[in-house]
């Protein structure tokens, strides 16, 4: 299991488009689960509507938990995605 946290710098937060791209990215790692947690609420990032429903805004800190056969690669890809896009 891999863990890391990230603080959103993008001023609009995780809105529709980045949420869609993040969900797509995580779906690519079949069998590996990527969870995002904000204020005790945790959702699977492949679930676009729930992810948008978290309402992650600029300045929020979110925690990722990545678990599964591809966890190394998936965690790295998600972290990179966050840094480049959010």
């Amino acid at each position: 299991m891999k863990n890391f946290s990230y603080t959103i710098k993008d001023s609009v937060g995780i809105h529709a488009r980045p949420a869609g791209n993040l969900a797509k990215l995580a779906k690519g790692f079949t069998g590996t689960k990527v969870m995002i947690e904000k204020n005790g609420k945790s959702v699977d990032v492949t679930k676009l509507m729930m992810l948008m429903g978290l309402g992650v805004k600029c300045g929020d800190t979110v925690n990722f938990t990545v678990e599964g056969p591809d966890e190394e690669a998936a965690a790295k890809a998600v972290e990179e995605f966050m840094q480049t896009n959010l």
Partner: protein
Amino acid sequence: MKLFHGKGVYGAIAIGCVSVFKRQEASVRRTHITDAATELERVENAKSKALEQLSAIHEKALKEVGETHAQIFEIHMMMIEDDDYNDSIRSIIETQMVNAEYAVAVTSDNFAAMFSSMDDDYMQARSADVKDISNRIISCLSDGENSDSESDSRMIICSDDLAPSETVSFDKENVLAFVTAFGSSSSHTAILARNMNIPAVICVGEEFLNDISDGCMMIVDGHKGEVIIDPDEETVAAYTAKQQEDAHRKDLLQQLRGKDNITRDGTRINIFANISGVDGIGAILANDAGGIGLFRSEFLYLESDDYPTEEQQFTAYRKVLESMAGKKVIIRTLDIGADKQIDYFGLEHEDNPAMGFRAVRICLERPEVFRTQLRALYRASVFGELGIMFPMITSVNEVAECPAMCDMVKRELSEEGMPFSDKVEVGIMIETPAAAIISDRLAPMVDFFSVGTNDLTQYTLACDRQNSKIERFVDTHHEAVLRLIEMAAVNAHANNVWIGICGELAADTSLTERFLRMRIDELSVSAPFVLPIREKVRSIDLS
């Protein structure tokens, strides 16, 4: 003849016949089924059909409104494939043994409710997207071809509301105008209408739907946001004339759009526009202004019942900066007092408010109000080219206090890890004789000057703007005012500071040449004056 008021989202006039838009979402009935597998297969088929349609709409939108605005349909496709959304549909069908249409409708309501309960305008608006995709699936389930306008003639489309996909699915050639009972000017539909150059009036209110039927005559005035049902001949004639005027202005636009603001001998000047709210951006872009020279931020305070929060202000500033896509936006900090009073500020009555507690004086006395506005401004600064301007300056000390406040706000933001641009220009209004007279001292402290000619005239000539009795003593071309402007221009340029004029005088074409000779760098006028001024500038020869 009956008149309705709404909000115009694209300023143009349409005269024609009404076509009432009928959605195919015919009320969904709950029916009991015996074979869940067949029902699930129907959902799968409807979904792939919906995805095909959306992909076609996305293509069409790419061509008609561009990539940024077309993105929404990509999101719609992703939403249709969302796991939770589909799980919900499946489980309703399997556990309740009900028809697919009903399962989709219930799922739609649940997800839409989730979004509309969020404390964020952007996310609230997403509930319309959930409903839009769900209605599309339901319509595919009932084999309905998605509502394309069947008629060949050009019609005014009237509806309670239009989803973005509905707006785009019309054949643009056949649409004279859009009129909706609901909607908001920041909705995708309004944005799309604007980008398709189709006159549109929204928020007309539900009652107007009772007064229309297919084929009835209507006038849509997108400038004023008015809709006239069954107009009489005289009114039609008056609006036809207005339409021709619009056409003439459009010609002017065709000739001058994209052209430089340059005199015959090669002197250049920027022509920007003034606005008092986010709604004005459409007119600014339509008139090809080079930027915003005066954004009156007080509308945020006037429209609200309490101090607008940092977040509310940030959202508004960001919207303006983004819409202007890299063109300069000068936002003037709060300018209330005098003729603009706001209850919750609790300001005392003054006998002579024009010379009283107003504008930057309030900001400096109430740093918490000022700080909130500056934080919102700096946070928004990463979305475009921002300039911040302080009104009613009379002394060196006031000017010194403003940038100090800006520095404090920037330090706070850095500590919190919030991004802001380091290219924000800071400037002051020259609207008191004092500021013009000591402009040599003020210029080294700022990046730009902007002359507010209305107040400068009132203070220089000792003539109250509100007093109609003394109108004949107000000489708007008074040499004293013009000399003060010239003095400020000379001092600005000696210090490498640029100078603009944002008061009413800027739009006075009989002074354009004089301003050009003073080497004024920018004129900021109401949007409809941008092109007439450009025409004037291009006719002048200074040599």
